[in-house]
């Protein structure tokens, strides 16, 4: 029991967030724990001194035992603290700690991805798509697409009130307002979807397709070939479609259902997800980090900045001048773009395994894949 107590004490000391504050200075643990070690050793010495009954030779006198014990206690504490400092420095090598605020909701699905609709968050997982009301208090609304496996992309069309769910075998549509059974809208390996109310863009592996949504999904023309797998699609207004593939970001101008490539940016890393913020597109590019690309001129896309402080960028979102990067097991990085460079603001490690992040401008929603929770953090300008 004594040993367990000592180990538990050490663990608590090493891992406690006593001084880990939002971007604040952290007092080196090696000194703190060395002090604790000295105190513990001092207590032992005091007990020894109280029970001391006479020198029996060697280093048994209090004058000899005391400095040695105190030194040993301080050294052990110092070494434990040094390890803690090293770990801290590794964890926060690229950004200081950032405390998460907001609320979290345990999910009923084992989550894999999330997407955001109007007032609704869609969390996809092995068991289907869980609907959560977006807002200050996350409220579970229900499940859709139960039983479907391999769900990869989800989007909602608020005009037709349907949810589109992409899987490896097809695109399925479900009513948003009730849990009536869904139906197959388009067969194929669906890698991405985006609906703008009138036209739906569907990623079909290395191709994408535009479809019009009435009573059913009606393809507009033939699939358009991209150079590699389409991983994300984002509408900007109803005339510009951003197509992110593993190898490039491309913009297409869509007129009367006809899409024309207007600009492209070759990614030096593997593209995964993207977000738009004004005239800037942010691309999460896995081990390549995050790219900021100037899209003010759709025909001439220019890289503004790249940040590879994150080990692996799973997803990216932006709101109020902040860029939120889902960094998997590292947590959530918060950065901002300052001219041609990203300035890291903080890292929220307690966010868990952040596999996906979305923002509606007012809130940021993150998915903790291993913890199985959805978290909403309010966007606070300046923080």
């Amino acid at each position, binding site marked *: 029991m004594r040993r367990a107590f000592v180990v538990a004490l050490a*663990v608590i000391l090493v891992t406690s967030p006593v001084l880990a504050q939002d971007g604040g200075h952290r007092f080196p643990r090696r000194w703190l724990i060395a002090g604790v070690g000295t105190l513990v050793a001092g207590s032992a010495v005091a007990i020894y001194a109280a029970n001391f009954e006479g020198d029996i030779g060697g280093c048994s006198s209090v004058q000899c035992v005391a400095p040695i014990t105190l030194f040993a206690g301080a050294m052990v504490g110092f070494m434990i603290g040094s390890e803690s400092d090293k770990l801290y420095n590794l964890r926060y090598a690229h950004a200081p700690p950032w405390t998460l605020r907001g609320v979290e909701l345990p999910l009923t699905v084992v989550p894999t991805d999330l997407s955001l609709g109007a007032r609704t968050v869609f969390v996809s997982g092995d068991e289907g798509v869980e609907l959560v009301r977006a807002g200050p208090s996350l409220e579970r609304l229900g499940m859709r697409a139960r*039983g479907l496996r391999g769900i990869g992309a989800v989007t909602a069309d608020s005009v037709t009130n349907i949810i589109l769910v992409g899987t490896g*075998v097809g695109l399925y549509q479900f009513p948003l307002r009730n849990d009536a059974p869904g139906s197959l809208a388009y067969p194929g390996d669906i890698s991405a979807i985006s609906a703008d109310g009138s036209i739906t863009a569907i990623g079909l592996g290395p191709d994408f397709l535009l479809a019009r949504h009435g009573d059913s999904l009606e393809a507009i023309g033939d699939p358009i070939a991209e150079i590699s797998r389409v991983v994300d699609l984002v509408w900007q207004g109803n005339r510009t479609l951003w197509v992110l593939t593993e190898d490039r970001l491309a913009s297409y101008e869509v007129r009367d259902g006809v899409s024309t490539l207007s600009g492209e940016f070759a990614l030096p890393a593997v593209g995964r997800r993207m977000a738009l913020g004004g005239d800037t597109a942010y691309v999460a590019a896995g081990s390549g980090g995050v790219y900021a690309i100037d899209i003010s001129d759709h025909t001439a896309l220019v890289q503004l900045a790249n940040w590879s402080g994150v080990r692996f960028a799973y997803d990216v979102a932006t709101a109020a001048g902040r860029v939120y990067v889902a960094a998997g097991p590292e947590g959530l990085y918060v950065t901002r773009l300052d001219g041609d460079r990203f300035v890291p603001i903080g890292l929220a490690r307690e966010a868990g395994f952040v596999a996906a992040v979305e923002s509606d401008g007012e809130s940021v929603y993150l998915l903790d894949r291993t913890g199985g929770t959805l978290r909403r953090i309010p966007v606070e300008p300046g923080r």
Partner: protein
Amino acid sequence: MHYRPLAGILIASLVAASPARGQGTADSPIAQANALVRDAVLFASRGDTAAALERLERATRLAPTLAEAHYRRGMLLARQAGSGLADMFKRRAAGAELEQAIRIDAGNPLYFLELGRLRLKQGFMRLDAQRLFKRALRAAQERGDPTAVAEVEAELGDIYHRRYQAVGHRRLITGDAWQFNPQEALGNPNYAREFLTERSTEIEDAGELDLRQAEEHYRTGAAVAPAHDKAAAGLLGILFDARRFEEFLEAARGFVRAAPDNSRAHLFYGLGLWRMNRGREATRAFDRALSLMTPSERGQLTHLSMIMRKADAESYERLTGAERGEFNRIYWSANDPLKLTIENEHLLEHLARVAYTDIRYSAPDLHLRGWETDRGVIYIRYGPPPVVATFPPGTNQLGEFSDPIDASDRTTLSGDPMMTGRITTVWYYPERNLRFVFYGPPGYNFARFAGEFRAYAEDARYAMPVKYDNVPVNEALDSIAIQTALFRPKADTLGTELVIFAGVPLRRMAGAVDIAEGPLETGLFVTDALERSVVETRRRETVVFHAERQFEQRTFMSFIAPGQYRYRVEALQPATRRAARGSGLLAVDAFDRPALMLSDVVLADRVAPRTDAPADRTEFFLDPNPAMRYAPGDEVHLYWEIYNLQADSAGVVRYEAEVTLRVQTLERRGFAANVVGGVLDAVGVTAKGDDQLTLRYEVSDVLGSRDRLPGWVALDLADAPNGTYILELLITDMASGQTFVRRRTFTVSEPEP
């Protein structure tokens, strides 16, 4: 044990570092020493280490300042030396040579690297090894040699990762126990579960610092030399263990691109693809990996003995290479969980497990590939352990322990000297209550079975040679009830007509699915004894998932030559990935004899002729009962066909049908039956019995142009109790006196809810 990659590295490094020709004049000592070094390289590459060492020794005497000679001699000695006491002098000699090489040329990273590796063989010198690797790293960076940088980074990564392995999954004992007791875990089936759930808790983030540092080193190594095997494998191992599969896949793809001819790169890529459920691509990656391997390495990787019972494995070992290849093909074909899918999920899982053991448990310093280790073998048999726990070396492992709580308990931990100073690692598979305990020295990527766990593993192997519980397709694999029936084909058709009635559990497969309808793939697969395809029928249809009544029966027909076969009927809903399967052995008779013959008896829920004189089963409403299972009170309908009845001069055939019902297992005794439908001659026949009854009746009919005479009856089993019954149909041709008998087994039981 042979370790081909290590030999390759050794030879490559010897050749790469061979001294440049033309140093000094031809007869100068330096030139002579260089010539001797070149000879030594040749001898070493041929495996003649003694001759190589002798020449290197002469070279160092001739030219004491020739660093290369010292380095090579030191390296050869170091590679020969183990970590035991017996090799202490060899290690010391190797160390002296390498230190001499460093004194002469302190800028060569390879010298530091080799000396560091030597230090790793001495456990207490590991810190010095780390210091040497850091010096090697500086030297490599100064030289601008990316391969050397990657090599050193990988070594540093290994050091940190092995430190992590010693503390990763570390448990804090919270109960009154002093230590996890492997002996207790062996004897008490509840001990491991209770200890892991109630008496210990996992220390979160234990060893994170070492793990992060290991990852940084591997990552840097892989970044400077993307084709570097060891750095890439180290990084991939960490990503895989943390279930960072997206990262794993991207890193593995980078490795493949940088080293397209490296079989391990494709192997690891296949592992990542399979874990991301991309089976088709995984199949291609594994195929590519196997094609790039030497026959010997391929043989090791595809060897199946470890997933067989010991006796079977011994027989397997005696096969020739070609026979083994054919056996492997048959084995994997028979073990494919779903032939409807393009990929063989169990084969992919097996290869993925082997690939993982290669990443995680290979120990080049011990000349071991991952699949040869104890942990590797268990991983390949049972997959990733759901619960892993490690416990530190105790202070009580010398047999001197007495429990502080119960001083009289001196037996629980005593007497296992193998445990001294070793990390205890527990793998627990809760689903089957399998637990395996390993001991391993800290700082080495090696652990072996603790105590009697080798024997326990053998017992487990006998009961369950391999398990693929973690394969997604098995998670939702239902069963298909099947009734097979053989009929004589029409005169112009060869073979025997095989009809398979399958009950696809569509209601269960469609349960709790939110789509109204979706595709259903079904298939019949018949293979011969050598698993060669004989019949393969695939169908695709759309089924309504939320129908009130599901039509679950599917019928497959085929013509097949007499023989022994294995059949399978499969169903798959691609959208839900729910599947079902039924299989069995099939003995196909010939119907080519002129004597009286009888088709199989079809057990059905309803049989009714469509015409007055039906010629064969196509002229019947036939609602088969694939499961051959009836609810109490259900009528049992039978259908059969009689061939070669002898007609009299008026064209009339007469036969006697004798239906015997025998009880196989019964909940209570005594039952009765009467014929309530079928040929008119039979209706009204009744019988009673304790455990057997016989219904007998005669039939006369005009054969006319028919080549067979169909027979059918409906039996009312009244209050026949739940149980299993054997039905025997004996037909006697009244004209010729010939008889023929067929049997079926069916069950009466309460219907499923």
